[in-house]
């Protein structure tokens, strides 16, 4: 039986300009840890990292699209399936608006409304860290903006007034509120709160 004693460690900084920060998600240091049940437990750095850089969108190009939790290629579903998953989510309530649901009392299609997610990133001007919210849990612009303002810890009483803008499917940034709520939910890709200078 081969006994392997290993002391693997992340590479230290070296003269050739190598930087620890270059390590992508997935590199980790391994410690042998015994828990109470005397089972060897692998301790790793968190595999999912939400870093500030990403909030500014700088690392977007490094991510493959569809990997919403930041891990490339996981879960192992192919591109076709990832696209389908996106498409079924971005249609409001699963997209069965046009179907006649004959005997099923409107249950058909994406049927479990509460589980039809639409996560979009939200940034507020002046705040480095972006957030993510599930648009499917809102019913109107009012509830959305109220929640957003409180989420970022600022309120109208502070004197700052914010406008809600969004990026649509074509990549254009628009002011939210002009189109019906459902149309908005169907086309929004990300949100940004910007200070309203007119106030």
């Amino acid at each position, binding site marked *: 039986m081969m006994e392997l004693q290993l002391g693997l460690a992340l*590479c230290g900084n070296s003269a*050739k300009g190598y930087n620890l920060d270059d390590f992508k998600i997935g590199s980790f240091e391994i410690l042998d840890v015994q828990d109470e049940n005397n089972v060897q437990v692998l301790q790793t750095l968190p595999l999912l990292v939400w870093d500030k850089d990403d909030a500014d969108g700088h690392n977007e190009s490094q991510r493959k699209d569809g990997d919403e939790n930041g891990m490339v290629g*996981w*879960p*192992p*579903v192919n591109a076709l399936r990832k696209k389908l*998953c996106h498409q079924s989510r971005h249609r409001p309530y699963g997209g069965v608006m046009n179907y006649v*649901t004959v005997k099923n009392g409107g249950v058909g299609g994406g049927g479990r409304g509460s589980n039809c997610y639409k996560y979009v990133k939200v940034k507020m001007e002046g705040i480095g860290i972006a957030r993510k919210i599930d648009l499917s849990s809102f019913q109107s612009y009012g509830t959305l903006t109220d929640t957003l303002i409180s989420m970022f810890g600022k309120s109208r009483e502070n004197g700052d007034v914010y406008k809600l803008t969004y990026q649509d499917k074509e990549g254009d940034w628009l002011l939210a509120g002009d189109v019906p709520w459902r149309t908005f939910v169907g086309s929004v890709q990300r949100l940004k709160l910007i200070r309203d200078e007119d106030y």
Partner: protein
Amino acid sequence: MSTLAPHFRTVMVNTLPLEVLEHIFSSITTDKDRNSISLVSKTWNEAERCCRKNVFIGNCYAVSPSILIRRFPDIRSVNIKGKPHFADFDLVPEGWGAYFYPWVVTMATAYPFLEEIRLKRMVVCDESLELISKSFKNFKVLVLQSCEGFTTDGLAAIAANCRNLRELDLGESEVEDLSGHWLSHFPDSCTSLVSLNIACLASEVSFSALERLVARSPHLRTLRLNRAVSIEKLPKLLRHASQLVEFGTGSYSADTQADVSEVFVNVSQAFSGCNKLKGLSGFWEAAPAYFPTIYPVHSKLTSLNLSYATVEIPDLGKLISHCHNLQRLWVLDYVEDSGLEEIANSCKELQELRVFPSDPFAPGPNVSLTEQGLVAVSVGCPKLQSVLYFCRQMTNDALVTIARNRPYMIRFRLCIIEPQTPDYSTLEPLDTGFGAIVQHCKELRRLSLSGLLTDRVFEYIGVHAKKLEMLSLAFAGDSDLGLHYVLSGCESLRKLEIRDCPFGDEALLANAAKLETMRSLWMSNCSVSFEACKLLAQKLPGLNVEVIDERGHPDTRPESCPVEKLYVYRTVSGRRFDTPGFVWIIDEDPSSTPYSNGNRSLASA
């Protein structure tokens, strides 16, 4: 050979004329047997190579086009695989390789009678397709599974020039859709089509051209439409193709303007006319109201693929359970545990089950599908031998139950969506469960692991999984010992793919020779140092050691630094010269530059 009657043994086999040997060999068709025959003697090798008609190349870089044509002078059918499997999940960067062009250029002159080309995960350009259509007068079969790099213009060339085309199957390829008119390039004289699969195409093909093509193809057995064909159009097509055995619908929802009941009746009637229908697929955006249209055929179905039906269908399980003869089922997790239980009670012929995630990126479960569903099917379906199952929770007990009930399992791929998830009832690793799988399922050929796993599971695998040919690992194990168990124990291992596991130099170098008995090894985000890669290449000149690293030149980092990705495969054609800037192939000669990018690139893709 051992079944030859005793008196044959007195014949000196080597005195038989080559033509006689060739005639005998022509009845031996599997690659394995052919390969065995060719090793018996020089005479047999000579006879075998002259009459070999089909060749399968599992790794396009294991051999070269020139070696192929030198050995086999008269090939009629090639089957070539390119990129490693993890390319399906975006782990192989774009531009890595697997170009088909060099192959077709060589075969165009060497094999004028080539009839069949089947490719998987290769980059195929329009020029290649044009060359196929012009070089092989008797070309019959083109299958492009998970390929990319071509457009509908290339397809137009195939349609226009391949007079005897029988099969055009685009698999799940990425095709640049320039125009739907390519289909109109099939001449009116083309009546030989047996199989047409265009399901992966995004845009609309000319429906009238499609209808006419189907109408003049009396031998058509397989037809898979793309999403752009809506349900109201199906009756028109099916009327001309009532002899179909396999049918893939397009989008299974109609225009808002359509009269639902009329569409319903027309489609049901069209299906009732298809007496030979055994397999159904497609069903994009399947509206629940239209689902009962398949009732006329569902009891005859042996294969059903609902994995693109992204709309939840009520009582999905109940619907499927009417398909008593089902052997193969692909479905989304909308089927839930309750649905699988119904299927387990009714579909006793089920051999293969694949349950895909409807929402793989949801933060938590969006459907009620757990380990229970898989246990139910394993217990209820006596012929179950192939499983692919995505879920969010698992227990060791469930796996043990599955293993005990299905000892003839051949393929078992479990994906617990959150990495390193333990047994949810005991919080222990899933070592015992998977250990039971390999212990009881002695015929297991393919295994994918997930969940919380220590080195112990690899010990079980090394000891028991003697017939295992392909193993996929992610976020598993504690140390090099895990990798060592697998490499030293799994005698039949051909393909090993690993991501994000703490495996490194020691196990790899200690088992280096094993790699020459395998097709390939993939390791990404592990702990293999560049230094070890160089040692491996030096030790084993019969391997190509490819370091794939998008961080730049390996020399800009210490030698002990882990490489991003490592792809090692055996080859008889030496290093390749079509590598992109982020791939370094380590030459075995330490006196030359220790590694190099390819500077020469073979002809464009």
